[in-house]
């Protein structure tokens, strides 16, 4: 069972929900795919047992063999290669490791080399959650390969909770694809509402069943409720905007441990998700 937690925009409380869900899921694995700003560790407080570098492949140009024909700079869709006439210069953070430059170089002047683009960490929490996260180096343009790596780092069959990066970019797509179910966390604001619609669109296109959690729920913002009702969307949970919950996570504490009914909410959420997954399997 793979459950991903995503959100059309940052700051909706997605990580709190993901960590809360992980803390009530027996024997689970939590994978933080928000590699540009991983903060699941703040709430889950894992003991890190392994940390290793992650690499990407970049081209290395041999300027002695190169005749500055410009082929490589033309085929690079990401403008990572610059032709300075006496040197082909690589802005390595922009390179997406597509290999096109090496393939098309008529002079065979390009070889491929490894370059560190981040690191992956593995740990365990005091309540037996197996924990993974990853850090993309600052400036790196492409997060998707590292997300894929940290996702694939776990190969067992324990339940997996994936904390997706916010937004609806290819990073989010990489994180949520091949999950059995995706939880979209939103909030009762016009921005939250707008970005929720974008996220729903993405999930529909890749055909992943999803449900909605409204965080910091405000009944005065009726647009969101109406939209969910009119489109018969699956509303899983409304988390009220309450001081005790806000205080808990602002102190870096998991509300499932400090706020009594939050744990009940998460257990209820988990049950609903499980039912949805079973429904899908029999459909």
């Amino acid at each position, binding site marked *: 069972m793979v459950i991903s937690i995503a959100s059309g925009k940052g700051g909706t409380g997605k990580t709190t929900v993901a960590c809360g869900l992980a803390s009530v899921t027996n024997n689970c694995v939590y994978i933080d795919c928000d590699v540009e700003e991983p903060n699941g560790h703040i709430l889950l407080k894992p003991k890190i047992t392994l940390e290793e570098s992650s690499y990407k492949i970049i081209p290395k140009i041999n300027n002695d063999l190169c005749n500055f024909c410009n082929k490589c*700079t033309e085929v690079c869709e*990401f*403008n*990572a290669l610059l032709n*300075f006439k006496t040197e082909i210069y690589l802005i390595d953070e922009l390179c997406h490791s597509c290999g096109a430059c090496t393939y098309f170089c008529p002079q065979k002047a390009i070889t491929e080399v490894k370059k560190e683009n981040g690191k992956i960490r593995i740990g365990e929490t005091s309540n037996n959650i197996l924990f993974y996260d990853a850090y993309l180096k600052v*400036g790196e343009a492409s997060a998707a390969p590292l997300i894929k790596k940290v996702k694939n780092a776990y190969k067992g069959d324990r339940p997996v909770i994936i904390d997706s990066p916010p937004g609806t970019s290819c990073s989010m797509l990489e994180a949520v694809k091949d999950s059995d179910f995706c939880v979209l966390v939103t909030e009762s604001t016009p921005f939250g509402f707008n970005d929720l619609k974008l996220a729903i669109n993405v999930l529909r296109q890749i055909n992943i069943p999803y449900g909605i959690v409204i965080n910091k729920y405000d009944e005065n913002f009726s647009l969101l409720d109406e939209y969910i009702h009119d489109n018969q969307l699956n509303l899983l949970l409304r988390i009220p905007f309450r001081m005790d919950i806000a205080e808990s996570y602002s102190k870096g504490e998991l509300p499932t441990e400090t706020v009594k009914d939050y744990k009940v909410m998460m257990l209820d959420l988990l049950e609903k998700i499980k039912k949805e997954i079973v429904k899908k399997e029999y459909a």
Partner: protein
Amino acid sequence: MLIAVTSSGDSLDSLVNEKFGRCQYFIIVNADTMKYEVVPNPAENAQGGAGPKAAEVLVNKGVNVLLTGHVGDKAEEALKKGHIHIITGLNENTKIADAIKFYLSKK
């Protein structure tokens, strides 16, 4: 000495465009003769890496000084690699001609 200014139009009367990688034109002025060349920015609508691509153009034109609003990290890396002196902080209400005059008077 060649001075490039990021411009929203194709003449010395045009206004500055503050965005280095996404400007419409570069106006490149020869400070010795005050002749100028208008170079469209090929990276204006690039998906990504617009700044470095724009830098490549200026480096190959032999530009010495760039006057603009602001420059991203990767563009800065490429400009420095090409030994272009970067001056940021230009405002989009400034005419190209005035930006050049101002730079030459301060130099």
